[in-house]
């Protein structure tokens, strides 16, 4: 690990001032930053600790929706009664993430900022990776792509985004709250992460010196009947091979409206918009109709050599999610 200077920000203004300097990085829970520092993925000259900033750790339910402070811990949000009751998909996604220790440390804002688990990006001995070193090439395109993206990749990168809770938030049309010295702005979560295109090193719309200060989930009739399903190669403590967040509004066994997001398949949480439209009005017990509608969401899938199985796996998972959401009271 290269050396760096360290300072603790006492206020958001302090943090924004410190973050304006080139070579500066923020640290909150530290679960990602420490690994990046150790692997040499980043080597900031200055680290600004925002972990003790006041007021950013609240979780609050209002008539407009749910506010989650950026520094709220994953474990705190997961067991918050308002979250469990009104936004079950968020609690479930969090409890299926990482381990108990990591959830006690990791912040919600940091969760959105985590970077891909692509093994080439994380390699201890550096390998070509356009995220890690722009222009160095993509080892995955000619290498192991089994765990990588089937949607949204490019000639430069086919990495997936690893967050579970971001998938839940995407299905609920959550908004990321950003603050900078120029002011505040709100970015829909589905627009927060960027597709790689020719610049895979640019992963979010966050500007230099801008800080994630919170997450807002709007009130929606779909949220109470929402769930998160995750398939992985171990029973626990593993990233998703594929996952899905489903939020459903149904009447007399028929789908009124549904929102579906996938994890583990794209560089960002992936909404299945075409499937959502096709599912409207369908009978929740008509499995073949459900499957046909869900398949429409995969028309633009572009699997690589080893990850074509994710299409079938994800489509079956979504159908299962629809059925289970339909069975919720």
């Amino acid at each position, binding site marked *: 690990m290269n050396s760096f200077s360290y300072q603790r920000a006492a206020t958001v203004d302090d943090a924004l001032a410190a973050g304006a300097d080139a070579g500066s990085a923020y640290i909150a829970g530290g679960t990602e930053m420490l690994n990046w520092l150790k692997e040499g993925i980043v080597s900031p000259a200055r680290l600004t*600790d925002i972990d003790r900033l006041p007021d950013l750790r609240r979780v609050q339910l209002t008539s407009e929706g749910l506010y989650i402070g950026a520094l709220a811990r994953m474990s705190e949000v997961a067991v918050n009664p308002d979250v469990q009751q009104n936004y079950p998909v968020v609690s479930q996604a969090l409890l299926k993430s990482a381990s*108990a220790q990591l959830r006690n*440390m990791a912040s919600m804002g940091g969760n959105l900022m985590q970077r891909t688990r692509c093994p080439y990006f994380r390699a201890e001995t550096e390998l070509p990776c356009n995220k890690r070193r722009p222009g160095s090439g993509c080892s995955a395109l000619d290498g192991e792509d089994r765990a990588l993206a089937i949607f949204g990749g490019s000639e430069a990168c086919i990495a997936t985004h690893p967050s579970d809770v971001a998938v839940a938030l995407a299905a609920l049309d959550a908004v990321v709250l950003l603050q900078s010295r120029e002011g505040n702005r709100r970015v829909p979560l589905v627009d927060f992460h960027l597709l790689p295109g020719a610049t895979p090193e640019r992963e979010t719309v966050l500007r230099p010196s801008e800080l994630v200060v919170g997450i807002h989930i709007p009130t929606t009739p779909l949220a109470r009947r929402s769930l998160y399903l995750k398939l992985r190669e171990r029973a*626990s403590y593993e990233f998703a091979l594929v996952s899905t967040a489903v939020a459903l509004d149904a009447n007399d066994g028929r789908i009124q409206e549904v929102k579906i997001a996938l994890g583990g398949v794209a560089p960002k949480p992936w909404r299945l918009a075409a499937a959502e439209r096709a599912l409207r009005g369908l009978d929740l017990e008509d499995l073949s109709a459900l499957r046909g509608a869900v398949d429409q969401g995969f028309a633009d899938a572009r699997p690589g050599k080893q990850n074509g199985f994710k299409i079938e796996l994800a489509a079956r998972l979504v159908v299962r999610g629809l059925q289970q959401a339909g069975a919720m009271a």
Partner: protein
Amino acid sequence: MQINLKINGVVHSVSVEPRVTLLDALRERIGLTGTKKGCDRGECGACTVHLDGKRVLSCTTLAVMADGREITTIEGLAHGDALHPLQEAFIEHDAFQCGFCTSGQIMSGVGCIREGHTHSDAEVAEFMSGNLCRCAAYPQIRAAILSAAKNGGV
């Protein structure tokens, strides 16, 4: 940087570079070697300690981030010669073989019990999944945790 770490009830004032992890500060500066360095990447759980009462990984925490906070390590669980109830349970249930992961397992297990995630063997498995055991003593570890939770006093 000069920092104060309150470890097992005793304040230690140490000077560390910002890049020193809490794990290395505990082991190399303060001499508390009960906390183990396994993967040093936040994956194995061997370095688990309690920070302000919550189980966390000391390898992915910078020592400077813990300045002024309360840390409990495996050395702080027993009262003199009287072992902590979960330490007793680990012995009773033969919950270790080589012992390298044990301090992390016990610190994590205490957290698991205090959080209330001990309703079933499966729940313990889920909430202890962040602690790997290369000897695969998992059934005995879960039994020890379930028994300590049942007997109370953790």
